[in-house]
Every structure is written in structure tokens, then in C-alpha cells.
């Protein structure tokens, strides 16, 4: 029977007990635990009634916003109704509505909105547009290099 070493620890095993006290293992927190522990929960909802571009939220200085869900609804009649994007990047839309039925998205992987970036809701008709989002505001100094 051949003998091979299939597993070799890189260092000596540490003592589990130190002075009779159990050393808690260091687990890497889940994304959800990390967001909740390091961040402040942010919930915002609102509406706009007249066609135009509206700055709905600007991320504060020294913070980043991790968006975890958004929704959009309108009672506009036809055509492109409402589009939600970053002021600094109008091509990548966060969410858009092209009809009159509500749409909601929950992001398993949050959208990161960087410091001082503004989110804009643009509507192309005179009618009520309802919007909302949830997320976590986290200090930039708390965010590791992903």
C-alpha cells in the first residue's frame, strides 16, 4: 500500500483553550451581516408629478450607498415613462418603467453608489411617478478593497 501525505497543516494547531476560556473562531461575516453591522439602513420613497429630471438622492461625503432594492410605478399614459440613473452616468439605468404596472427589484448583490454621486429620476410625461429604494450607507473607511 502506497503511503502519501495528502494533507499537511501549514503551522501547528493552536490551542483551543487558553486559560480555560474558549477562543471564539473568527468567521468571515456574510454580506448581510457586514452591511447591517457597518452600515446605517436607508429607506426612501417619494413621488414626482411633472415631466423633468429630478435629483432624488445624493450620497453624502465620506459615505457610499449600497442599494439593495428599488421600485417604480406610474399612472402615465403611454411611451417611455420613467427612468432612474446616475447623474454621472446616464447610460446605465438603475431601473426603468415603460408601462403603467409597478416594477420592483431586489438585488442579491447590492448596487454600489459612490460618494457624492447623485441619483436622478427622469420622467417624460405629466403624471405621478412613485419611486423608492432601500439600502445601507457605509463609511468609506469601513469598506475593504473588494
Amino acid at each position: 500500500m502506497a503511503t502519501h501525505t495528502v494533507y499537511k497543516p501549514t503551522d501547528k494547531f493552536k490551542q483551543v483553550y487558553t486559560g480555560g476560556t474558549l477562543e471564539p473562531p473568527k468567521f468571515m461575516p456574510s454580506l448581510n451581516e457586514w452591511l447591517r453591522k457597518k452600515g446605517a439602513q436607508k429607506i426612501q420613497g417619494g413621488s414626482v408629478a411633472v415631466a423633468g429630471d429630478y435629483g432624488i438622492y445624493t450620497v453624502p461625503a465620506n459615505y457610499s450607498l449600497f442599494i439593495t432594492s428599488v421600485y417604480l410605478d406610474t399612472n402615465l399614459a403611454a411611451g417611455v415613462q420613467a427612468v432612474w440613473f446616475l447623474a454621472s452616468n446616464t447610460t446605465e439605468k438603475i431601473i426603468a418603467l415603460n408601462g403603467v404596472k409597478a416594477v420592483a427589484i431586489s438585488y442579491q448583490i447590492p448596487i454600489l453608489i459612490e460618494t457624492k454621486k447623485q441619483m436622478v429620476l427622469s420622467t417624460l410625461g405629466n403624471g405621478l411617478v412613485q419611486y423608492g429604494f432601500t439600502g445601507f450607507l457605509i463609511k468609506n473607511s469601513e469598506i475593504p478593497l473588494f
Partner: protein
Amino acid sequence: MATINNSDLMKEIVEDAKIQINTDKVPSQLAEKVVPVMEVNPKFFRKINVIARATSSSTIYTAPTNKDFFLTAYNMSGVSTATGEIRLTVTPKNQAAIIIGTIELGNTVAVDISSDNITQNFDRPILIERGSAITLASTGTQSLKQATIFGYTVEE
């Protein structure tokens, strides 16, 4: 050794362990030492324990004051013939209501929106401040409306 006198437990032992009663003896005594079994991390095993619904403008659910409540999902729908809206809000203590979700109904320009609905699952559940009321609010007049919420409470 203590003898087991619970026939249901004996039956369960036979069925769950698939003991061959023709050949093997069914254990009928407890070991002298009791070995506790603990969940290593009960936080991993959350389950919905709050489902609440309202069909009129009213409080759907009030978060407990002695434990945390996390909102995981909601569904909201309505039927209307006049402009109006249905809102799901939460009102923390001494603060204005925060809008969680809204649907618009009954604009005369677009008759097909006389009914609408929204369903939102929160992959990252929303922590509701203790003692806060989650409310179905509305403006205008709806012939039908409802909101259902789902969530769980955490003891610690």
C-alpha cells in the same frame, strides 16, 4: 438506566432508525448521561413567523417592543376608478412615516391602471424599529385594496 415509557417515542425510534424488530431489540432505556445538542448558529435558520394583512387603510402590524422585527417581503394591490394611491409605510417613534412602497391607481388617461399590484422580496430584510407600526395608507377611493407583509422576529 431510566426506562422509556412513552410509546410514541418508541414507535418513532423504530420508524426513524428503521430498526428491524424481527432481528434487533428496540432500545427502551435512556443512557445515563444526557448529551445536549445545540444549534451552532441559529441566525442561519430564520423562518417567517409573521404574516399580516390589511384590506383597508389601517395598521397591518406593529413591531414588538421587546425584539427585533425584519420585513422580508410585501405584496400590495388595489382596484380603483379614480386617481389615488396605496402606500405601505412604517412610522418609527417620534418620526414621520417612511414610505416602503407605493402604487398609483385610477388615472383617467390610462384606464388599464385602474388595478395594479406590486410584490417585493427583500433579499436584505429591512429592520423595523421596535414598536413601529406598519400601515396600509391610501389617498383617493379604492373599491378593493390590500397589503400583506412577511417577516420574522429575532429574540436576542
